[in-house]
């Protein structure tokens, strides 16, 4: 996987912007996450310095929230549900199918930074089980063909077609 280059200027201006806020850490991290798709680990020190925090503290907040990532993620983050309802309805095979289709293991990101594959405990849409979410969109009552067609919408051809 190629190393992402960081736009330091952009990072600097986000920090500068949020520095004035009293409880600026979370909004700052959210903005960085949004902007870069992850929080560059090299950014922890300058963020901590600007807010008068210890770098270890900032790291602690980042790794506590699932919404923040220290590694670059794909453009599309796929979260497959592993909750009980989905499990009963065959969520496991949906996950297996996704892994094969994407050629990714859990937590991995594709070389081209297109997809990241993750799992979650419950998406809160159990009536649609089995479910998954791509960025902010829910997909329910999944079956392998349905998964394939969803992936196709995001620009992933089926393996066989290649």
């Amino acid at each position, binding site marked *: 996987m190629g190393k992402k280059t960081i736009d330091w200027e952009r990072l600097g201006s986000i920090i500068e912007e949020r520095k004035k806020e009293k409880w600026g850490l979370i909004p700052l991290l959210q903005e960085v996450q949004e902007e870069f798709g992850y929080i560059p*680990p090299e950014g*922890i*020190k300058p963020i901590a*310095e600007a807010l008068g*925090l*210890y*770098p*270890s*503290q900032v*790291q*602690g907040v980042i*790794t*506590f929230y699932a919404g923040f990532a220290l590694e670059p993620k794909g453009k599309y983050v796929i979260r497959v549900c592993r909750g009980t309802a989905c499990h009963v309805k065959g969520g496991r095979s949906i996950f297996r199918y996704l892994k094969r289709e994407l050629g990714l293991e859990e937590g991995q990101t594709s070389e081209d930074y297109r997809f990241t594959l993750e799992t979650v405990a419950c998406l809160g849409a159990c009536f649609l089980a089995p479910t998954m979410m791509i960025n902010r969109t829910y997909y329910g009552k999944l079956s392998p063909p349905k998964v394939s067609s969803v992936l196709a919408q995001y620009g992933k051809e089926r393996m066989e077609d290649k």
Partner: protein
Amino acid sequence: MEDITLKIDGVNVTCPPGTSILDAAKAVGIKIPSLCSHPELTPIGACRLCLVEEASSGRVFASCVTPVAPEMVIVTDSDRVQRHRRNIVRLMMAEHPESCLVCSKGNRCELREIAAELGVGENKLYPMPNVKNFEQVNPFIVRDLAKCVLCGRCIRVDHELVVVGAIDYNLRGFECRPATLHDLPLEDSSCTFCGSCVSVCPTGALSTKTPEFVGTPEKESISICGFCGTGCSLMMGSVGEHVVEVNPSRISGSVNGATLCVRGHYGHDYLHSKVRLGSPLLRTGEEWKEITWDDALELAATKLREIKENYGPASLAFLGSSKCTNEENYLFQKMARVVLGTNNIDSGGYINGRLAVQAVWKRLGNTLFRKPLSTIGEADAILVLGADPTQSTPVAGYYIKRAAKNGLPLIEINPRKTGLSFLSSVRLEIKPNGDLAALAAILKYLVEKGWVDQGFISQSTSGFEPFSAKLLALDFGLLYKNAGIDARGIKQVCDLIKGKRISIVVGSGVLRQRIAVSIMNSIVDLALITGSMGERGGIYILAKDCNEMGAWDMGSAPDFLPGTVPVFDAQGRRRFERLWKAKLSPDPGLDVVRIIEEADKGRLKGLYIMGENPLRSLPDKELIKKGFEKLEFLIVQDILENETTQMAHLILPGAAAAEKEGSFTNMEGKIQSFEPVVAPPSGAMPDWDILDRLMALLGQPRRLGSISRIRREISQVVPGYGSLADGIGGWAGTGEVRGSVGPEAETIRIPFSEEILIGARPEDGSYPMWVVLGTSSFQMGCGTRIAKSRRITEYCPEGFAEVSVQDCDRLGLKHGDKIIIESKAGSVMKSVRVSTDQPEGVIFLPWGFDDNNATLLLGLAQFGGPNFEGWNSCRANIHKA
């Protein structure tokens, strides 16, 4: 607010609002199990073991984070609460690995203790040991985070008390552990290895690396750290006569509380170094022979007596130690003055700027500025000059960092960044030795603006008018130039201290400077002008050695008697003559440098050194060697074989602080007594005992024979040390006449300086760079003792030179390259550390490493004399080796 009364287990408890239920219970002797709470740390309610039940509502809550409320009825051990507690412990045990039996926390593990108390044995849960890396690469701390119970004590010590921030919780849930930034090993993080987190960890997750030993020490005894002048209180664990572990003592009110620094925590293994001296040794030519104590003392007495008879008392000199106890320094100077009749006595504190400190005594009285470190944060701002306390006196540094973290403005005047800089509000990056000009500029600015404490000035000072007139006549432009700063910096500083009382903290960057005396005088002027004296604010001098202050108080100096009474003060001298029944000379004796010069001239015949290593600590080793070779008799009393013992005719093996009874006076003026933790190596003897025996042989009527008798004499003789008699100690100077100068004391007026110097030297083209000398926390003084610590030398075996990025770029240097640093006096080779902490043209070189060869760059000259260039810095040139 009114006190609150509640009922805990049927007992009525009254306490101030805001008290936690846990503390309220403790106050009446009810013990609630707890794991994450710690008396010095903010409660966080993480472990839930301290659950209690409120009788009326049946609510269950964590008592460490719940404040008392009126009318509360609390039950601390209901069945329900007990059940919950047991379940929590069972869950903790289920997650715990099975290496309990060989854990170095052993019987001190608080988790085990609580499990035993609650009767949790077999937990009947499916064990799910949390497997984590076992980290033990560094020589200090072993991290076995599988045993972590996530109490967060380590994190809170690190954030709240030590103010480093090396670790915090990382990840969540089962994965969660305290971790460094990027989860790197401690040695690759900002960790200072102070070990404070290790001492508070309730389990075996963090422990001290002690390869020789696993388990619980047989005995724990309290002692005082023998390294820097902070005077931390230690709990030393021993097995047999071996100190195997050091932790902060749990004595309340100690200067260090739950903290220590790397030296105190891990450097005491030097005690068991192979080069400890264990028998008196006599040298004839190149031959060393072990002799008995009787023969050794007899010989020492004979030689001292002979030299005095043949050449007169002025041919003898004594070099005492800022690392030896008060009792020993007292006896030593008494031996010099009373028994042998000479004022030729000095101590190692000379090079730490004795004359600069004395300059302050002269103006303020010698105890006024000694205040508890806890008062630093009580002023309105802190100004730190020429010091990196986070390296030199780390625990004193924690006080400053805590105050700054809590929002007190912190100003630094220093040529380079320090461990405080991340918290400072303003940093004046002066040229090396620009302190005096910077202070003059600050004083001038304040006076011009009228930002002075008129009330204090008119009531407690004199000479303000002429002083301010002289200030106004100075030229800002010249001051800025000499200080290497601009108007903006001075404005920032003055805006910040306007109307404030300041704690002024001074370190050896000032105290060892060429013009240290003038700087100290300006510092006093600044304290006067801002009214920073008395209740809030004042001058804090960071003493480098454990008993620097005490040695001076005991009169280990050529020009003053115990209690810092000048030898020329006829009245004071007469008092001592009466008490000691002896005639005392009114003429100051020789200081360390003069001792060496006189030896070299052949006029000094006999020298007795106790606990100092001038051949390592002072510049110009060749001259010292030459001088010592000319001595008829050189007695060296020490604990380790070192550069100076090698030149002795007679070596007397003494004892380290942990091996004897005695007392030290720390930088706060706190007298702290201690008892032996272990015995000295067989054949060695406590230094006071050696002196006491020798003085009897030299004709003192009787031996004092015990520390308590020596203390009794000190408490009767030395002004300010009355409290030593009870054997516990107290504060030096209690009841001293000039101890209470403040706005309310009208009788004493402190004069402003009569002249204002702004000192600067012309640049020297052939030496375009500056070397700034300073302390590393992995060294202590000249390094005689700490270089024998196996742990410390393993971690930091050799010295280095910090060179700015700009200079590295210019000279094509990278990390680890060897460079030659050349000054007028000599040259040294060091490896480069590329650093962003200093500006271009400034190199930082720590003392102590590589046989303290940094001294090669300096010259030996009398402090403050015409040839003295200062021992804090020098001009230099560098090139790649």
